């Protein structure tokens, strides 16, 4: 079946020269886009048009284009990663849009994610949180024998589900409070669920939450928007686990 062609789309996109400049929306018209192309392919075509017209192309983050690296972002028509579920922007297809539609594309907005240029935001804040405790301090060696360290199947599953987090920051972008709790909870959970990570669980929760607060992220009010918008559907039950780990750590020291 041949893909349909969207004859005309209006792309209302945030343009900002650099971190210091003010920035504003510009609207560009783009023609003949296949519904089978991805959102980022559409952006590539738009950028080609802009270059031919002598306009500076739109800067946006992208890398693997198969939904596993966590580099792409974009707030499309009011939702992080656009109007689809369990996908990153690079996996979003143009069939999700109607002919003649105006598509609003914004960078992710949070105090902790300052805009660098156009749609590119600085997400090093997430790396800084990881550096505060998202690791095991000693080398735990290679893969042990399957029966050497017993791990219950449910624990292994939950740890793997939490480890699916690609650190894209959609949870922060979706949250009305710009909270990074889903990200932090995923990182705390995938280690807290396994024996190698449990040793430092208390210190990890304390340090990562302190760093998160310090970097200017908001607090969690349990709206659940992060889980819905997360391309990997990380569960908010991880946030309950983070709360538990944090409160336990607070009591024990």
């Amino acid at each position: 079946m041949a893909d349909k062609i969207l004859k005309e789309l209006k792309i209302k996109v945030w343009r900002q020269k650099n971190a210091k400049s003010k920035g504003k929306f510009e609207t560009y018209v783009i023609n003949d886009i296949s519904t089978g192309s991805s959102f980022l392919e559409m952006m590539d075509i738009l950028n080609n048009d802009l270059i031919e017209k002598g306009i500076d192309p739109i800067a946006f983050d992208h890398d693997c284009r198969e939904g596993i690296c966590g580099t792409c972002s974009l707030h499309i028509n009011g939702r992080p990663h656009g109007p689809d579920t369990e996908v990153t922007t690079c996996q979003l297809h143009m069939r999700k849009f109607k002919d003649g539609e105006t598509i609003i594309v914004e960078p992710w907005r949070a105090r902790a994610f300052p805009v660098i240029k156009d749609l590119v935001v600085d997400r090093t804040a997430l790396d800084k949180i990881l550096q505060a405790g998202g690791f095991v301090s000693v080398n735990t060696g290679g893969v042990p024998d399957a029966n050497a360290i017993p791990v219950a199947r449910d624990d292994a599953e939950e740890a793997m589900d939490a480890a699916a987090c690609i650190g894209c920051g959609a949870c922060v972008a979706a949250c009305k409070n710009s909270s990074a709790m889903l990200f932090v909870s995923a990182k705390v959970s995938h280690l807290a669920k396994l024996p190698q990570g449990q040793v430092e669980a208390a210190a990890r929760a304390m340090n990562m939450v302190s760093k998160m607060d310090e970097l200017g992220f908001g607090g969690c009010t349990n709206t659940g928007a992060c889980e819905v918008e997360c391309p990997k559907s990380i569960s908010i039950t991880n946030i309950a686990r983070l709360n538990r780990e944090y409160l336990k750590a607070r009591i024990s020291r």
Partner: protein
Amino acid sequence: MSKFLTASIGRKFVMSLSGIFLMVFIAVHLGLNLLLIFDDSGELFNQGAHFMATNPLVKIVEPILGLGFMVHIIWSFYIEYQNWKARPVKYAKRNMSGASSWASRNMLILGSMVLVFLVIHILDFFVKMKFTGHPLLEEISVKGVYMENAYALVSATFINSTVLSVLYIAGGILLGLHLSHGFWSSFQTLGLNNKFWLKRWQVIAQVYAVIVAVGFAVIPLYFMLGMYK
């Protein structure tokens, strides 16, 4: 400790504990108030009100309850201010209806409206019963015990004023909406949640919220519609 109370999870911990305390109070308050519609002579309600006014344990809990309200209200504004600061540049377009419930996104607005209702409610009854007195509260004797006629004041308020009755119905519904998110959210914040309990807490929260909203709204309706006759 001070660091804990201002850390993001600590702030939520304070909201959660004070919220659970207030939800226990609301359950007791609703239970007692429903006596208004189960005994049209007013004797049951008067006995209940008299018990609450004279019981020494209640007297101890009363100031703690006041403190619970203060903490919950002050912390909510503090939290909301911190959260508001975390996004200095707002989005031009937001489409959040599919991702989260309206109540969960507007807890401060719902809470503020409940607060306005609470002030009116305290002026209507608590102040009159406790401090200023009211002609309708004249002492009566129930089974040989002298007590204030609280039933007369409450029933007359709803029978005489449609505006107040409607306001009280609205107050009950607003509180129900606030609790539909607040109830399960408080347990999530305490870490008392997992993949099994997430749905359970949410269902229990909806049931509790409906009971509170319907329970409190039914009382003014009962008097408004003249069902006491």
